[in-house]
């Protein structure tokens, strides 16, 4: 739509989904703190974002509370059992304090009981075999299958690839901004569906046992909520990260060749750089517990603050040449997994996925060429993710 715009963060800026960084970089350099189009104060500089993620003066906000407040409106005249608030109640990144700590302990223990290395190795082999005889395919499907194979094995999930894709995509949307009630109702259906699927999973029993070990009696709805967030974050975030990272590597022949020759330590450095560069979680939200004075802004306590992780990860005050992938960047204090008390629980799983998967996947993908014109991104704001990107076999 034609509108005279001053510089305000607005994801409806033309071309935003294709390349949000152009707009985010402008915001950071021109108006690094301002009220964005979502009506909340938004921070773009690394130092601000990093401080707010790490400091105990800021807390996560509860999506579940928001959805609970909106329940009467969302479900008015609708023949659906309201489940949005319950299903998102235990997601660790929306909890604080002791509950948050306990939720994390049980989940982390469950992750540590899984042999991810073998599972990831097996999954990359299955994925490459599945695509070996194809001359054309959607790169997004390739990334999705790899992550699906991992999660299915790791968490004993009885769902198809299509179901996992839809389920996790819907749960991811529940955290986005500018979500209308029609979409929330669709998300609610998928959350109810997930609960049925989780009933017979060994992961459910594992979580119950882990919380029992630390004398935490969480009810079954809490367990289902944790299982939902495991699938959502495990699939959608991992796929987003893998997709953006691999896409950059296959578009850049020099980077691809370097990636294939690196030793273990150098590869780990490159992987961190890919996490920084791709920043799939573009924003996160915090609330300030105390009134805040910052660069001329007087912000009352309990204000909702949007922290732009993607912009912070490309801040030239922190990173030299931030908009290029530097395979030997070290140190690399990126914020792609957050920081502080809400540091991503699955960070090490995501790292292991790339440590094991990067070389065999790039070795396979280098036989194909990406169709640049076919690259489409999901219309999501908080989490950036590929929608589709076609690849065709090289016939040179």
């Amino acid at each position, binding site marked *: 739509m034609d509108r005279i715009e001053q510089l305000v963060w607005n994801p409806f800026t033309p071309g935003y989904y294709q390349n949000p960084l152009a707009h985010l970089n402008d915001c950071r350099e021109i108006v690094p703190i301002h009220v964005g189009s979502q009506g909340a104060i938004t921070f773009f500089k690394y130092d601000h974002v990093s401080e707010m993620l790490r400091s105990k003066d800021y807390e996560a906000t509860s999506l579940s509370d928001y959805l609970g407040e909106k329940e009467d409106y969302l479900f008015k005249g609708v023949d659906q059992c309201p489940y949005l608030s319950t299903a998102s109640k235990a997601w660790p990144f929306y909890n604080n304090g002791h509950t948050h700590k306990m939720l994390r302990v049980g989940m982390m223990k469950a992750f540590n009981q899984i042999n991810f290395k073998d599972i990831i190795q097996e999954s990359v082999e299955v994925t490459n075999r599945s695509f070996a005889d194809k001359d054309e395919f959607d790169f997004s499907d390739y990334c999705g299958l790899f992550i699906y194979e991992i999660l299915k094995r790791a968490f004993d999930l009885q769902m198809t690839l299509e179901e996992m894709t839809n389920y996790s995509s819907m749960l991811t949307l529940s955290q986005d901004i500018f979500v209308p009630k*029609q979409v929330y109702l669709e998300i609610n259906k998928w959350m109810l569906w997930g609960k049925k699927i989780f009933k017979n999973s060994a992961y459910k029993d594992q979580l119950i046992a882990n919380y029992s070990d630390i004398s935490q009696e969480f009810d079954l709805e809490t367990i289902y909520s944790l299982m939902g967030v495991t699938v959502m974050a495990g699939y959608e975030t991992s796929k987003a990260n893998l997709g953006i990272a691999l896409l950059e590597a296959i578009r850049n022949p020099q980077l691809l060749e370097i990636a294939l020759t690196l030793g273990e330590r150098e590869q780990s450095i490159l992987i961190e750089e890919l996490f920084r560069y791709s920043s799939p979680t573009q924003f996160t939200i915090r609330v300030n517990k105390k009134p805040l004075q910052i660069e001329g802004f007087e912000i009352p306590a309990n204000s909702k603050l949007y922290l732009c992780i993607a912009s912070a990860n490309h801040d030239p005050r922190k990173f030299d040449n931030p908009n290029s992938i530097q395979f030997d960047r070290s140190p690399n204090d990126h914020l792609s997994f957050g920081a502080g008390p809400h540091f991503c629980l699955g960070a090490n799983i995501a790292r292991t996925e790339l440590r094991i998967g990067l070389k065999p996947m790039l070795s396979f993908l280098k036989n194909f060429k990406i169709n640049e014109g076919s690259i489409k991104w999901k219309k999501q704001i908080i989490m950036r993710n590929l929608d589709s990107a076609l690849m065709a076999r090289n016939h040179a």
Partner: protein
Amino acid sequence: MTTTQWLQEIIADESGEKPESVSISRKFETMNLDSLSLLSLAHEIESKLSLEIDPTALTEYDTIEKLAKWIESNS
């Protein structure tokens, strides 16, 4: 049914008011519509008219009169 009449109908339904009490020059902010309601209205308009609409547009085109004009000039 004109665009204006259709908007009156769906906005009345969303705000819980009678269509006749929803004047075309009345600002949405004076009705029983919060930001979620406005987003849901934008979604309804987008899907019914196959028209790409910025969800924040209803804060700029903030009356039925303004919104109807925008829809008609972009359809």
